[in-house]
């Protein structure tokens, strides 16, 4: 079994089935890209993996570290080592970045049987990670994402990922709203974390991000199903030709 294994996952939103049986396997050390046109269900998959209550699981299983995580609360999934970088990170008034991050990191550490960090020790670690992602140290004392620019929010997501050291990370449209410099910083951040201990599922509409984060596998999601999987060349082909040819091809196979 793969480290993350999605089996026949079906998800509905307000009674409409969005994911109609998704199968996907991601191992640690691998980078997978999930591409697809708007409305194909990419973000639904991301939220469903993390356990957002708005998304109703109507069938299937998601196996991670020996458990069907669909039975777990979002926080339990996170403490197990699953991470979602949000497309739209929430702004939370009055909750400072440092306070929140220490609580989150310590929750994960305790789940791993490690000692929680004290404020001083954590401050040092936070500073170092922020420097690496070129985040101004003053952000530690600002309210979480409140008044942050799009790029700052995305960097904050990657900062969280680097602190939480997940085993499986899902990046949901992390490239959206980023200029080229911010994109490079975010991609560098992700690349520095990728290794034998982490698998990544990069969800993106465009090939652009994949110039910076190079996937081993590319999957195309359409109408709630993965319709094609391949190597990095598939992304380039989609970039060059769009999605319509694939749709046309699928339809001709279906009628044949």
């Amino acid at each position, binding site marked *: 079994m793969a480290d993350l294994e999605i089996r026949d996952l079906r998800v509905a939103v307000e009674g409409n089935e969005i994911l109609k049986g998704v199968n996907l396997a991601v191992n640690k050390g691998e980078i997978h890209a999930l591409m697809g046109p708007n409305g194909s269900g990419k973000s639904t998959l991301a939220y469903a993996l993390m356990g*957002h209550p708005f998304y109703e699981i109507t069938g299937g299983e998601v196996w991670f570290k020996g458990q069907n995580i669909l039975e777990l609360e979002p926080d339990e999934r*996170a403490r197990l080592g699953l991470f979602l970088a949000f497309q739209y990170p929430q702004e*939370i008034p*009055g909750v400072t970045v440092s306070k*929140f991050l220490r609580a989150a990191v310590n929750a994960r550490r305790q789940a791993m049987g490690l000692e929680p960090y004290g404020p001083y020790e954590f401050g040092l670690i936070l500073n170092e990670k922020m420097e690496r992602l070129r985040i101004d140290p003053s952000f530690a004392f600002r309210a979480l994402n409140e008044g942050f620019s799009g790029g700052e929010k995305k960097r904050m997501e990657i900062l*969280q990922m680097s602190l*939480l050291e997940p085993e499986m990370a899902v990046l949901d449209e992390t490239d959206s709203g980023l200029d080229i410099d911010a994109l490079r910083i975010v991609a560098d951040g992700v690349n520095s974390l990728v290794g034998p201990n982490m698998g990544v599922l990069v969800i993106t509409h465009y090939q652009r991000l994949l110039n910076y984060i190079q996937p081993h596998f590319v999957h195309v999601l359409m109408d709630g199903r993965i319709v094609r999987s391949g190597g990095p060349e598939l992304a380039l082909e989609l970039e060059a030709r769009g999605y319509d040819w694939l749709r046309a091809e699928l339809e001709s196979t279906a009628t044949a």
Partner: protein
Amino acid sequence: MAELTLQKRAPEAEALRALSERLGDPDWLRRLRRQAFEALDGLPFPQPRSRRLDLDWRAFEVLLPEEAPRMEGRRARLQLRNGVPVAEGGAELPEGVVVLDLETALERMPDLLERYLHQAVRFDTDQMTALNAAFRMGGVIIYVPEGVEVSEPIVLQQELTESGVAFFPYTLLIAAPGSRLTVIDELGGPTLDRPALTSGVVELYAESGSVVQYVAVQRWGSHVVDFTTRALHARRDAAVRWVNVSLGARLSRAVIRAHLLEPGVAADLLGLYIVDGDRYIEHDTLQDHIAPHTTSDLLYKGVLRDSALSVYSGLIRVHHGAQRSNAYQANRNLLLSRQARADSIPMLEIEANDVRCTHGASLGPVDEEHLFYLMARGLSRSEAEHLIVLGFLQEVLERIPVERVREEILEDLEAILFPAG
């Protein structure tokens, strides 16, 4: 410290005479008490807006002291129990600054008291203020002379440890022109078996150019029905930060009035309340812009759980001629259960045409998207809710001047909102 004996009496004319006798009231105060007592029946009872209260003040006894010890009045901390001064301590105050119980102050500075007492809060406002004026024992005066700066925060602790009684805390703060001070006024006591009634009065006089920070923290036991009337008279260029924190009592109705009497006054009016069970809290605020070029900025925030109920009613009144005034008002409520309720009633009375006024109110549960975001980082639902609640209150908390006070409020907040954790 010797344990003081107290007597309890029915609130009748006889008790009033005995009280004046034992406290050695001057004639004008005896007259005032009697006037207030005689006015009682003709005055309205300040009925809470959304919870009908059948309360007869005659059902409660009043406290009489056997003998009240005398205080020096030179220290930054003064503690009163059941209206009797029991201890003073803390830092030595600058020359001329006085922190005293009223009885001692009446011997030492009767003229000053006669000039200020019940000017900002008239004794005949309603039954509760009249009861306070008639049967008050103890109470505190803080006086800072002209130009004097008190760097150490002044801390008052007014405690109630008796049940079945009506109790009347009182705070008089006089900041002479150009003076500066910070006062923490803590009112509280244990929860007891029989009901008690508190009727408090606070009068704040911020004279020209004074800088005053006044924080009241109410932690009455849950047997207490609490009424309080607090008023500010602020004169030219005074800068006032006034925070009302309400954590206790079964039912509490607070009237908060800021009168901006002369140009240049800036008043920062903050409130924080935490209510659980079926407790009830009501705030009735007035931002009274009498002079031009005055600013008031009001923010009251509350968190309610269980079937708690909050009523906020706030009036901004800008008088004719109070041009170039700014008045802001916001009441925000976070509801942690479906049964909790918060009503906001904003009101404007604007008689001037060149003013800026805004008001807003909001209520709602913890945002599910916020919760999910924090949970997706590994925080349990209750930890996430916890952080969000603290974050919500942060805007008020961070403007409370003394670290220790902030921390103690946080502890109370934990105990009320997250008792299991």
